């Protein structure tokens, strides 16, 4: 009756099927390009105890730092750039800033600095930028991208001075930051801390939680059949089921039930137990890549299950999702991907985004 009430924002789901052994497989690129990861949850069917490799990999995850009231220009100073940004990959994301209302900043490991600012700040700042793609009629949000690796932005140069002047004297952009740095050697443990010693800096480790589920229904998966046209359930239904499992919901309701009619998609089989292992924090793509590598080796030994899954959630308030595609919040800001890893090294990759986001690569 009220047709104008029946519309809702678009969402995108990209599904890929390939094999890790395929030479052209792009799984590592997809992982590496999703810069800001908030949570990883791993589901291993028919598994009661945490495999030892899992905890050792997660223990090796990079530490990250929460720095309070850090002025943005500090991160672009000559010394900091030389010592930290250019020698390894630095990930920085402003903490507790909401992309749909606050100014949000991010530094990508590629050396790009992204400032997503509201109209007033943008006009005061006087730096060159673009209107956000997801503005409504009147542009109220602008995105400024500064590429620190660009030659014309070399410290001491005219453009560099202008950027510093804008960030230091025009508008002092300050925020709490989550910082993490990945370097191959991993030798400079206290480097970030020593560089930012005059600010309150807290070292954090990714937090881990585990959960064992018992007696659940699970859809039967066939690695060759991503599209599922032959059978009845499609990728959406599988992702929905995965959601019900990670959130511990009942998936065996009667069709006549008043409260919920959700049912596990057919064809289904039963599972005696499953392990859900979650890691939360600012997680680096490099670490997730090594985790993925270890998960692939899970099937080196004979196992009861033929598949396992890994879901990686991105930060809803980061100004980018994959690569440098602009990301907005709109209703949920979701951007996540799920790997389903099969025994024979085939995999499915589902990448999902909400309304204010480009198509995943």
């Amino acid at each position, binding site marked *: 009756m009220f047709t104008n009430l029946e519309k809702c924002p678009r969402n995108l789901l990209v599904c890929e*099927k390939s094999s890790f052994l395929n030479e052209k497989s792009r799984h590592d690129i997809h992982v590496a390009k999703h810069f800001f990861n908030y949570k990883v949850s791993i589901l291993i069917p028919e598994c009661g105890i945490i495999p030892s490799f899992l905890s050792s990999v997660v223990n090796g995850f990079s530490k990250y730092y929460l720095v309070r009231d850090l002025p943005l220009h500090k991160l672009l100073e000559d010394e900091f750039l030389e010592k930290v940004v250019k020698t390894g990959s630095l990930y920085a994301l402003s903490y507790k800033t909401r992309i749909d209302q606050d100014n949000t900043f991010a530094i990508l490991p590629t050396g790009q600095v992204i400032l997503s600012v509201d109209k007033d700040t943008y006009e005061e700042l006087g730096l060159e930028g673009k209107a956000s793609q997801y503005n409504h009629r009147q542009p109220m949000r602008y995105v400024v991208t500064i590429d620190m690796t660009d030659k014309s932005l070399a410290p001491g140069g005219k453009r560099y001075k202008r950027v510093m002047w804008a960030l230091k004297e025009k508008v002092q952009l300050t925020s709490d930051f989550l910082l993490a740095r990945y370097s191959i050697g991993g030798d400079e443990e206290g480097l970030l801390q020593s560089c930012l010693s005059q600010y309150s800096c807290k070292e954090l480790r990714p937090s881990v939680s585990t959960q064992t589920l018992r007696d659940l229904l699970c859809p039967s998966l066939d690695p060759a059949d991503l*599209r599922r046209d032959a059978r009845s359930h499609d990728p959406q239904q599988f992702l929905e089921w*995965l959601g019900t499992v990670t959130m511990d919901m009942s998936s065996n309701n009667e069709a006549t039930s008043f409260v919920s009619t*959700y049912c596990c998609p057919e064809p289904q089989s039963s599972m005696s137990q499953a392990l859900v292992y979650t890691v939360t924090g600012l997680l680096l793509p490099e670490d997730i890549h090594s985790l993925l590598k270890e998960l692939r080796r899970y099937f080196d030994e004979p196992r009861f299950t033929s598949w396992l899954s890994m879901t990686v959630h991105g930060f809803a308030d980061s100004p980018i999702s994959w690569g440098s595609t602009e990301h907005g919040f709109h209703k949920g800001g979701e951007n996540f991907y799920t790997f389903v890893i099969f025994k024979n090294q085939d995999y499915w990759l589902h990448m999902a985004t909400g309304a204010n986001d480009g198509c995943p690569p």
Partner: protein
Amino acid sequence: MGEHASYERLVFKNASVYHYMKIDLILESEDKRLNAAHFKQLIISALRDLYGEIGAAFPFDVLKFEEDTLTAVLRVYNSGLVKLWSALTLLGSYHSEPCAVRVTQVSPFLLALSGNSRELELD
């Protein structure tokens, strides 16, 4: 290389027929208890107030309801999302006692509700 699965890519736009909502019910007095069925009935009556019997005639599911924290996860067809959301917003009383519903997260993917980065507390 024939034995490995061949590469295949599918793009779905608006393929999800459902939206999922994570909501909190806030009651004024702490001692009131209600179960999932009461909770759903409360939402249905709110819908009926705002959109009448014809407007409220659409299905939705309470996938999860925690009685101690009064948080719930709802599943609704895309066409009913706006109606359900607005009815929840205007829901103001339970058994003639003031109450409110806070919508924490809305997403077309249920999986996204399990990882809300806005809940990250580091202090």
